């Protein structure tokens, strides 16, 4: 298999050539990808917020943000600056410790989950053996933070919102995990890299979405519910709960929830594109094209092109999914809490189970197509 470019190796080698010991060079390398991903995730918020506003505006025949920066691109930055400079209010009877901890616990796991998002064969912070399972585990921490902020605000709407959020994420975690399990069954590995590699080779035809259409839908619905996107945004349903668990928050603590929700949306879209849309693979396989022209896979310029194309592809797929999420937001009315739980437990869960069983059966029957 094509190893792609090895940034870490080149970086360490360059430093060793400069006369630094290999251990120190590796230690110097360690924080770099994390910082890059952190910055990337933060920038992705700006892009997502801008996209969401512009797409919403277009769907409603408005113009959307226009005055902050060219085409309103700096609107998110303006929002962020406003949030930073706002007074940080803790309600008089709130619990100050839990009130502060809540948003942090919601946001940190989301950023941690970027550990396992690959943008290329070697362009990932860590290729963990438990890969996608880590993401599922981390995303199950968020309800604790939501409950914490809901409880500590000392406000009935907050508490109700927090309870709803926790109930919602617990219920939708299960179908989501089952959908992931079906994919894992086919790739024989939990590692995100292996999952993408298993889909590679046939261009767009090799993607998991053709083998797992039901799984794709289940996963995307459950991911939207986990992100509290609009058809499932009832933890913060304005008409009923003011703003749910965010009601009492101002300033940057509210900003953390805001950041968390958008980063989570992008993360879910990235994971969907990795699990079902072939990750960094382009619709037409690059290696196949290369062999068509007769260029070796290890040619340096080809590797650079492949890597950048991979990053572009991953982001493009993720943002296409974000676009669908925004479109869905303005199409679907919010569902009721009982409908939400009914849908999760009585529809998604059985369908996900059947999907898993079918995948297992198909894997036994056609090991060639379903990863023997």
């Amino acid at each position, binding site marked *: 298999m094509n190893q792609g470019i090895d940034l870490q190796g080149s970086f360490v080698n360059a430093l060793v050539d400069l006369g630094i010991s290999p251990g120190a060079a590796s230690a110097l390398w360690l924080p770099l990808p994390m910082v890059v991903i952190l910055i990337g995730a933060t920038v992705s918020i700006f892009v997502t917020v801008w996209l969401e506003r512009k797409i919403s505006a277009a769907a409603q025949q408005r113009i959307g943000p226009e005055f902050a920066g060219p085409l309103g691109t700096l609107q998110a930055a303006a929002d962020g600056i406003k949030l930073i400079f706002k007074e940080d209010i803790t309600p008089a009877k709130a619990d100050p410790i839990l009130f502060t901890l809540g948003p942090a616990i919601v946001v940190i796991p989301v950023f941690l989950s970027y550990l396992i998002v690959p943008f290329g064969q070697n362009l990932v912070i860590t290729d963990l*053996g*438990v890969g996608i399972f*880590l993401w599922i*585990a981390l995303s199950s921490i968020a309800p604790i933070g939501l409950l914490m902020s809901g409880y500590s605000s000392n406000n009935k709407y907050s508490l109700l919102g927090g309870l709803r959020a926790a109930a919602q994420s617990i219920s939708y975690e299960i179908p989501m995990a089952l959908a992931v399990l079906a994919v894992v069954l086919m790739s024989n590995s939990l590692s995100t890299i292996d999952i993408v590699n298993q889909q590679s080779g046939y261009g767009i035809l090799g993607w998991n979405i053709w083998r797992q259409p039901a799984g794709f839908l289940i996963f995307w619905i459950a991911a939207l519910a986990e992100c509290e996107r609009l058809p499932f945004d009832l933890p913060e349903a304005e008409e009923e709960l003011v703003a749910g668990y965010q009601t009492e928050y101002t300033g940057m603590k509210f900003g953390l929830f805001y950041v968390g929700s958008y980063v989570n949306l992008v993360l879910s879209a990235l994971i969907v594109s990795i699990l079902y849309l072939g990750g960094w693979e382009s619709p037409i396989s690059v290696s196949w094209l290369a062999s068509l022209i007769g260029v070796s896979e290890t040619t340096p310029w080809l590797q650079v092109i492949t890597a950048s194309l991979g990053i572009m592809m991953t982001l493009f797929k993720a943002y296409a999914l974000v676009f669908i999420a925004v479109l869905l937001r303005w199409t679907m009315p919010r569902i009721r809490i009982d409908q939400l739980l009914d849908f999760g437990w009585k529809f998604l869960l059985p369908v996900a189970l059947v999907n898993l069983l079918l995948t297992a059966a198909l894997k036994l029957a056609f090991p060639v197509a379903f990863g023997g």
Partner: protein
Amino acid sequence: MTLAEGVQLVAFGILTAMTLGGALGVVLLDNIVYSAFLLGGVFTSMAGLYILLNAGFVAAAQVLVYVGAVNVLILFGIMLVNKEQEFTPIKQAWVGKVATGGVCVGLFALLTASVLNTPWAISAEVPTGEMATVVIGIHFFTDYLLPFELASVLLLIALIGAIVLARREFIPDVAPGEPASEALQLPERPRELVSSVPGSEPGR
């Protein structure tokens, strides 16, 4: 000591402090909500200890099951059942306290004895690391099959029990034997049927 070893030592110290402190907090704090949240902290730091032991899968499972499910359920229980209860001081409460203390001391003595009696030696076996998932799976379906199946049957029983408890087909509006409250009735609702035949109205 290399960098990795130093990091591991520091991480071990922090995680141990977090586990012990959190556990003490769970037991000693008055506010039950704090106890529940600290329990989540304890579970998380235990997951950290598993990671230090090269058991990434177990750590992730620990976070998923204990933090994400068990702890959230405990919190749910606390937050949904906020029935204010007056605690009447019980006479001879000290008996219970002494009994609890005795049990705890006994448990602690047992644990200490087993800790002291175990020959602690770092096993020479290479940790499975990344392949842990596969090894765990193989164990589940060979030598640990019975405990695994028993655990799943236990969970199934709990699941069905919960469904039976939660599934009440019919909840009557008015409990039998209790007179219907008039607070929710509309005042203009006719209380008695009025006959349409003149002269035969009740009360004439």
